[in-house]
């Protein structure tokens, strides 16, 4: 989440004061991401230094100083909105690592480990869903933030489900489960996961 670009987006609607920017930022992200006022002013100073916003020079620093977006700022915002975030190199996922380690250990029931994580993720989803269910259905900003979290958690659960099914199949096919280290996947491909 880029505070810099979020502030540019808010300023693209018209000139605003620092405090106002903070309030609007929090309101639009469903108050899930609190923002301190110091962070707002530091970011505004940098944006001004880079020529992306400008302020009324005569006014003193502080709450009475209004900021507006420049043409360069509007261009920067448009570019940022359309620039895909870095999804190319998969992160080292702790959950994946735990299940992989469990798979290689004797005396550990991998499927039980999978279930512990599945339950925990479902419990988290229940909490988010409860928030969404109790929130005003017209609060789109909040729903978007909660949906993003729900889809992220769901994707992990779906991965666990697939892992569980693969492990179950392995257990019926080969009584002595072989850990992934003997995999025949070429080394170059196996390195894909170490991007970050």
């Amino acid at each position: 989440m880029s505070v810099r670009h979020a502030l540019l987006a808010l300023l693209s609607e018209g000139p605003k004061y620092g405090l106002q920017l903070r309030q609007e930022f929090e309101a639009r992200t469903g108050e899930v991401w609190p923002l301190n006022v110091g962070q707002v002013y530091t970011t505004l100073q940098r944006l001004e230094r880079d020529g992306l916003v400008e302020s009324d020079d005569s006014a003193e620093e502080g709450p009475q100083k209004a900021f507006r977006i420049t043409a360069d700022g509007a261009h920067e915002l448009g570019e940022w909105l359309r620039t895909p975030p870095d999804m190319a190199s998969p992160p080292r996922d702790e959950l994946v690592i735990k299940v992989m380690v469990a798979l290689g250990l004797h005396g550990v029931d991998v499927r039980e480990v999978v279930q512990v994580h599945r339950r925990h993720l479902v419990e988290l989803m229940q909490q988010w869903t409860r928030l969404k269910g109790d929130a005003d259905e017209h609060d789109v900003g909040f729903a978007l933030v909660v949906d993003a979290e729900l889809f992220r958690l769901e994707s992990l659960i779906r991965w666990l489900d697939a892992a569980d099914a693969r492990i179950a199949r392995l257990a019926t096919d080969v009584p002595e489960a072989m850990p992934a280290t003997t995999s025949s996947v070429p080394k170059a491909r196996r390195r894909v996961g170490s991007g970050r």
Partner: protein
Amino acid sequence: MSALELRGVSKVYGEGPIEVHALRHVDLSVAPGELIAVMGPSGSGKSTLLTIAGSLEERSSGDVLIDGSALSRMSRNQRARLRRRSIGYVFQDFNLLAGLRAVENVALPLELDGVAVKTARRAGLEALEQLGLADRASAYPDELSGGERQRVAVARAIVGERHLLLADEPSGALDSLNGEAVMRMIRAACRRGVAGVVVTHDAQLASWADRVVFLRDGRVVDQTSPPPEPESLLVHEPPR
């Protein structure tokens, strides 16, 4: 008293070498007003659990109690009356009758139970109103969108005095917002006192439940704990 209770319920299909244990000693209790989700992969016994709980299928052993009354002690007629009067079902493929209008579909369980047509239709319309579908009451199923059809199916499941709602993959092939709408309705029915059981492999649907029970190879292997206050989620690291 539980609205629904399964006591040591087992179900075996076939005999001898082709014996399949669909359910093994399942204990489950659902209180009035509670919404339970049963999660598990295909073949884990989810659908069997639901059909046995709803008296649509016989168990091999154990017992099912609805509002404290054991199905094993009821006559065939008593069970049929229970299904018509107390239990609402929602299926993945909606199961609406194509030749009946939305309101007639919803009123059907009441009419089958001997309620006068006028009274049944009025109750049907009320159920549709609760789900925001009153203006579609005279439409036939093929004139409704997938989301609307499933809402009609939910209306039919809660019409009248029904206080146990059983749903099998109720969002079926609906998109995520329509699936959410269906779960909001089921949850709202539970807030009014209906006991609900939803079986699904979909974690988003399951997360609407008060409690999620995990089924594997016909056994209950785990369940979620009551969630803490959701406010704890809102304390987040500040954005960069």
